[in-house]
């Protein structure tokens, strides 16, 4: 068969990942070549099947009702704080300036997350005494809408490293951001 296309190109064509000229060439070829047409259908059926199997598995409950683990978000938060602690521990530190003061600044997440009466729990008892670095944005962890949320600040090390978590009524963290003090 002349000018037949390998599986990889047919697969990329299926996903719309080819340049327009290659796409048009393959489309024309599939009109004329029954072998490539059959091969394309086989690849498409397999891709759809694999996608369906993986999507079904993804419907597993995040927190199985049969065996809930309360305050699960804390586990991830603690792990992240530990991770960030190491990152910041690597950075050169300036000596603290002035007396320690509580840092419990409420932060407003980007829409559509709405925080009603945000409650800040400053876990930090020895927060870094310098100003908060502006411009840190929350990283959304899912697209679940939540009506109310609590902003929880976690910290590690000597307070030089902090992160804010937006925790929904389900007890899960829905967004996170690194808070750095200068």
């Amino acid at each position, binding site marked *: 068969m002349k000018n037949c296309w*390998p*599986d*990889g*190109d*047919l*697969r*990329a*064509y299926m*996903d719309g*990942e080819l340049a327009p000229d290659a796409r048009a060439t393959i489309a024309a070829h599939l009109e004329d070549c029954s072998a490539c047409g059959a091969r394309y259908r086989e*690849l498409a059926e*397999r*891709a759809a*099947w*694999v*996608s*369906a*199997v*993986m*999507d*079904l*598995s*993804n*419907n*597993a*409950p*995040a*927190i*199985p*009702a*049969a*065996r809930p*683990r309360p305050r*699960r*978000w804390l*586990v*991830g*938060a603690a*792990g*992240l704080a*530990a*991770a*960030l602690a*190491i*990152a910041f521990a*690597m*950075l050169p530190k300036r000596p603290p300036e002035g007396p320690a003061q509580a840092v419990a600044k409420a932060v407003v997440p980007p829409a559509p997350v709405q925080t009603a009466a945000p409650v800040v729990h400053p876990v930090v008892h020895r927060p870094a005494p310098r100003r908060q670095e502006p411009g*840190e*944005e929350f*990283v*959304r*962890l*899912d697209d679940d809408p939540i009506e109310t949320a609590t902003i929880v600040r976690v910290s590690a090390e000597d307070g030089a490293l902090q992160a804010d978590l937006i925790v929904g009524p389900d007890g*899960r*963290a829905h967004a*996170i951001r*690194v808070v*750095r003090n200068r």
Partner: protein
Amino acid sequence: MNPTEWFDALFRAHYARVVRMLGRLMGDRGQAEEIAADAFCKLARQPDGADKADLTAWLYRVAINAGLDAVRSNSRRKRREERATAASANSTEPEALERLLTEERCERVQRVLAALKPRDAQMLLLRSSGMSYRGLAETLGIQPGSVGSMLARAEQEFERRYRARYGGRL
């Protein structure tokens, strides 16, 4: 880019995706967050000056491999827990049965992914998280023109192994 900036940039760009991807693999959001945090912990230990694209690819490989390792080590415990759950569940409750079925589906996929070559499992997980071919090429450190053929091969291998174990059942 100083050390703070490169870590922040990678965190903002990839943390949520890594958690979602691991959540898909693990079927457990909390465990996904733990593994993602550990991967970023290891990322922070990487030397300054490393190429950002290399670090990104490295991050995803570490996260997925840690997830697959966890799946393998969890499998025995999970089976034990599932038997306990099944024993305690009222078999006449449709909700309980559906939950067990969903968990079983998830574990089948986990077992098959864990049995694949790491590169194939990485490809399928990253693609199912919605990553483009360009992103796949950068993350996996391959030529963009090779993504289609690698994806097709990974899907073929996944289907072959899944059907060998479980037939055509979804």
